[in-house]
């Protein structure tokens, strides 16, 4: 009872406009100095990492997906192990493995950002590869056979028959993967990359005395920023999926 009464009191004192003793509170911190530009700069680091990783995973993922449809048992087993390992490990564990592990095992000092890109490319390749495999497998054999019966060469079959059918299924899923990458790239703060969360922390710490309650608006805004980046992409993917369903 008492604890909740105290909380209620502090809540009411926060919301009411009483003498704050020279301290400012509220949303003003966002536009104090160049704080907003700094936050956007941090967000840009996040987006740069995820877009770079997505761009690199795209060709690699397609290659990996085609590799997984091969009948060779060795390729099958190896790609299966790779996919399952990447899938089962939390991305943060992968980041730790690359960031701390390579330093120790190969005496390589990778920057946080480079380790992040490596991990996200490994992860994106696996995930996209599985999507590509699923799309390729779902094309009925009769499509290949009819193309061959019509006299198309294998290359023509791929370009005119198979790829157009898989692409429609793939693009929405690949776009969703990009939003997942943006969201996952928030983890890089834990291996020391200065991105949007870290910038937010710096702003909060630097203004500890002038804005004692800065954590609320800053983290609230970062939450919103992520939402504003990811939501349009998700909506777009959803739209494409709906339009191409048939």
């Amino acid at each position, binding site marked *: 009872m008492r604890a909740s009464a105290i*909380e*209620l009191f*502090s*809540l009411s004192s*926060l919301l009411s406009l009483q003498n704050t003793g020279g301290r400012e509170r509220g949303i003003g911190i966002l536009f104090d100095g160049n704080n907003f530009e700094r936050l956007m700069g941090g967000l840009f680091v996040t987006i740069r990492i995820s877009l770079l990783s997505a761009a690199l995973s795209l060709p690699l993922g397609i290659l990996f997906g085609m590799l997984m449809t091969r009948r060779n048992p060795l390729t099958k087993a190896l790609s299966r192990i790779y996919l*399952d390992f990447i899938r*089962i*490990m*939390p*991305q*943060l*564990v992968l980041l*730790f*493995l690359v960031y*701390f*592990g390579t*330093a*120790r*095992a190969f005496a390589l000092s990778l920057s946080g950002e480079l380790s992040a890109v490596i991990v996200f490319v490994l992860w994106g390749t696996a995930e996209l590869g599985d999507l590509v495999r699923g799309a390729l497998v779902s094309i009925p054999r009769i499509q290949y056979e009819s193309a061959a019966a019509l006299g198309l060469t294998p290359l023509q079959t791929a370009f005119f028959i198979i790829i157009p059918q898989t692409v429609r299924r793939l693009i929405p899923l690949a776009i969703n993967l990009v*939003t997942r990458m943006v*969201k*996952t790239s*928030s*983890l890089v*703060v*834990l291996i020391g990359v200065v991105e949007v*969360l870290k910038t*937010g922390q710096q702003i*909060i710490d630097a203004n500890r005395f002038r804005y*004692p*309650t*800065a*954590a*609320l608006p*800053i*983290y*609230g805004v*970062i*939450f919103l920023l*992520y*939402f504003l980046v*990811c*939501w349009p992409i*998700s909506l777009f993917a959803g739209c494409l999926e709906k339009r191409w369903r048939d």
Partner: protein
Amino acid sequence: MDFSFIRRFAPMYFDAARLTLGIAALGILFSVLIGALCSVTEYYKLPILRRIASAYVELSRNTPLLVQLFFLYFGLPKLGIRMSSALCGVVGLSFLGGAYMTESFRAGLEAVEGVQREAALSLGLTPLQSMGYVIFPQALALSVPSLVANVIFLIKETSVFSAIALADLMYVAKDLIGLYYQTEEALFMLVLSYLVLLLPISILGTLLERRLRYAGFGD
């Protein structure tokens, strides 16, 4: 590889894994409840609640758990809402998981044919009974594969809890690296712990999926 080191610190990993599992279990339980509620709300197209549910799903699915946790753990205390890191973990995981579970249940509910609902109503079941006895059980069987995928996803997501000072597996590994520089051993144990936690669930999920494929009606 220094095995005496591993033997010495294995209990720490064990405790951390227990903590991770405990929080994950609570979070998953609440996520399933939230998911079931929200998806049923959307299924029946309840006027205002449906809007709230879909806004919640969009908000939670398009933001990272780490940012949600930072807001809960560092932001909300400024409003006088103080939570322990364990409680924050459970709340954050339920907030995130609820949205993903909603999507799974929704897909399952949509896959149940409308004739089932009509048949149940024509047999004289009330709408609540027809949902509870006829529609939801079928939807549940249909959404099991994605539910299992969500469970694995949520357990993996618990790895960010170290950022709000919960002594989970990541936290222990980072601690040991910092204290003893035994990086290989600490990371090896970390990977091993997650494999031990997640591999059985993944295999169990595949088996369950195979079994429940017979639960479908007709085809």
